[in-house]
């Protein structure tokens, strides 16, 4: 078993994490924020479930649930996954991913939505 240090001894942060955590105080703040997010996620889960029992019409319920889910996902991404302090290169990759996902979703739906149908095709005059 490796030796363990007890947490009341002065700690040093390994150099490689310095970029992400700057210093000890900042790191502890980050951890406290994560715990706060944990509580928020639990609360928002209960809110999501509760809201689903209120009748806002089908689209209304879906929209509200997706808004809450997106907010929860944002918290996970920003704090748990530490995107809030992440490097530019990572954002470049993610922004293209989001764009292409949106393209896949909305262009596919668009193709299903906009189709040739008898109403929009002039009748052919076949001699």
């Amino acid at each position, binding site marked *: *078993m*490796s*030796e*363990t*240090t*007890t*947490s009341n001894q002065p*700690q040093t*942060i*390994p*150099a*490689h*994490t310095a*970029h992400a*955590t700057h210093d000890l105080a900042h*790191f502890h703040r980050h*951890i406290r924020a*994560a*715990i706060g*997010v*944990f509580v928020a*996620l*639990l609360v928002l*889960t*209960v809110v*999501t*479930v509760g809201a*689903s029992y209120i009748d806002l019409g089908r689209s209304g*319920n*879906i929209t509200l*649930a*997706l808004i*809450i*889910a997106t907010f*929860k*996902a944002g918290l*996970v*991404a920003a704090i*748990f*996954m530490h995107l809030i302090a992440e*490097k530019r*290169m*990572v954002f470049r*990759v*993610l922004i*293209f*991913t*989001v764009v*292409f*996902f949106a393209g*896949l*979703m909305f262009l*596919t*739906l668009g193709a*299903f939505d906009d189709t040739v149908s008898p109403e929009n095709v002039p009748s052919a005059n076949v001699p």
Partner: protein
Amino acid sequence: MEIPYTVAPREDTGLWNAKLGIWLFLASEVMLFGGLFASYVVLRVGNEHWPLGREMFLSVPIGTFNTAVLITSSITMVLAWASLVLKNFSKFRLYMGLTILCALAFLGIKAFEYHAKFTHYGVEVEPQTVIGGMPLAEWAEKNHVKLMPGIRTRDGKIITGHLETKADDHVMFVPDIKEGTHGEHPAAQRIEKSHITRLSAFGPWYNTFFAIYFTLTGLHALHVLGGAIVNFYHWIPGSGMWKTQPERLTNRVEVSGLFWHFVDLVWIFLFPLLYLL
């Protein structure tokens, strides 16, 4: 020559290799689940009647509990990594163990849910069916059984419940009674096979809702399993790296944590879409 930037970050990008690597991989996972989500939307929009999760007997309390389990595993994962940063190996062991435990709990609950679906049936009968000596509608009224619209035939009706026995010419079926009804479950009822147009458990073949439910949650569960296996590796077999290259182990745990949070993130969308909406 050694491969550069495996632990220390490169100056101009600010990243060490595995950090970039995992984000690239997660980008591909976004597209994977994104493809499935896009399919879900297309299928849902294209179907006239899309049932609510609870109409299809998905248990909201169980799903909510499972969501809480996964959220808890995310914070324990953060704390596991933080323990390594603060050089507290025994705390790392504790929190990583909790994370793996939560993962196993999630999978166990999911297995329970799947089993419940595979043993829960919908039997579609013709409207003129006679059960317990009574016409169908009368029987349903008397026994507080909900009749759902048929899928196979236009005026057929679906009774949900559990299958007690199956014989050549009939089945013995224990029907579900309506929610909020007090009193005992009715005993098994005999339904003649000649009146049955469809008898099917709530598996992926039952309807499009279940097809996408099992595919989405199944693929997600595989990711939970994969993440749990990697976390287990860091927890025990690979933890010897703490003695030789502690920063590298810390990085590995951080990178596995990113994957783990992503898995949690997918569930944050899956849960409301499938169970609540």
